[in-house]
């Protein structure tokens, strides 16, 4: 239920929540189906007057040839322009739930926050748990709750970014909803997409969910501290991933022990300088 427009559709309600160490502000977007809407719903009320009575037969053929997600793509381009103008490097972090996206972020921010200014957008269906973890590190963070939505879209990012007003030259980390399928289709305007996979997920994830690996440029392999305890073949995973996307660049890390994190950090430093 939205106070602004009185709309009461709970279905797929999207909330954007600024999480502060002290204050918690609320602001929301909502919609009736998917993605935040813009208060311009045109529920053709004239439909109630029986149009068959008018008896006019203006049949018109429209050759549209339009991408179904053109609205998302358009807004993604705008986000991209905003990031470019402010010299912001934006990363879209995608993975299945539980691969360690938030842990990777926590460790990265804790280790680099004195040299890099971070801004974080957290996407989850419910709760501000992830944003709370990031807020504890005292960096600006916004939680987007997608309700029943299974991915972030460019409009959510556009609204969240307006609230966050990130610093020029900062690193924008967008943690997508944990899901290896749906987020693959939605460009957010990011500079790069990073897919994270933990070694507990098995080697064949890349060919089971190829779209996500196809659309990413970087693959972070997390939880390598567990290698001694698992039957896991690192080369096999990489072979599968390279079969899907031969240009993929790998980082093997443990966000828990810190092993391998330095090369990931160097990559971030280098990306920000470009």
């Amino acid at each position, binding site marked *: 239920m939205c106070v602004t427009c009185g709309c009461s559709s709970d279905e797929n309600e999207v909330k954007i929540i600024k999480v502060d160490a002290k204050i918690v502000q609320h602001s929301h977007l909502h919609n009736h189906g998917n993605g935040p809407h813009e208060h311009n719903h045109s529920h053709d009320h004239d439909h109630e007057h029986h149009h068959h009575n008018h008896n006019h037969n203006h049949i*018109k053929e429209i050759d549209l040839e339009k991408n179904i997600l053109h*609205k998302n793509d358009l807004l993604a381009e705008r986000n991209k322009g905003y990031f470019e103008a402010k010299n912001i490097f934006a990363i879209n972090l995608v993975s299945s739930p539980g691969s360690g996206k938030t842990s990777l972020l926590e460790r990265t921010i804790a280790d680099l926050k004195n040299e890099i200014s971070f801004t974080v957008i957290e996407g989850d269906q419910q709760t501000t748990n992830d944003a709370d973890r990031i807020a504890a590190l005292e960096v600006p963070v916004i939680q987007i709750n997608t309700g029943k939505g299974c991915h972030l879209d460019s409009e959510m990012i556009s609204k969240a970014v307006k609230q966050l007003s990130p610093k020029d030259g900062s690193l924008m980390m967008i943690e997508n909803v944990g899901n290896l399928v749906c987020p693959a289709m939605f460009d957010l305007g990011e500079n790069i997409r990073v897919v994270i996979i933990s070694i507990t997920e098995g080697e064949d994830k890349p060919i089971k969910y190829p779209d996500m690996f196809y659309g990413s440029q970087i693959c972070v392999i997390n939880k390598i501290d567990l290698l001694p305890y698992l039957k896991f073949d690192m080369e096999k995973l990489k072979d599968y991933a390279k079969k*899907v996307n031969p240009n993929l660049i790998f980082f093997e890390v443990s966000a828990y022990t810190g092993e391998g994190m330095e090369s990931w950090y160097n990559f971030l430093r280098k990306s920000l300088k470009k």
Partner: protein
Amino acid sequence: MHELSIATSIVKTAEKEVQDNGGEQVLEIFLEIGKLSGVELQSLYFIWELCTNETVLHYSKLTITEPEGIAQCAECETEFALEKIYDSCPKCNSPFKNIISGKELKIKKLIIN
């Protein structure tokens, strides 16, 4: 279930087109959804009725064409059928390729009145 986003995007576009063209409803809609687009047609059909109910698409006839996946090898330029996005070139086995068909996600045409 990103098919929900797909369906609602289609509804929004159709509503705008009908409005811009001074029409009332969509009689027919033609979509092109490639086999490698990542959209499950079964899921899309499943939610289509729900999403189009009481919109300009309520009574429209839905036609979907599904272009097959085709790629061209970036090394030897062989054109080949791409069943899975990770198929390699059948001739030289290179994984580097350009996808030329199968990723379509388009509203081709609307017939409105």
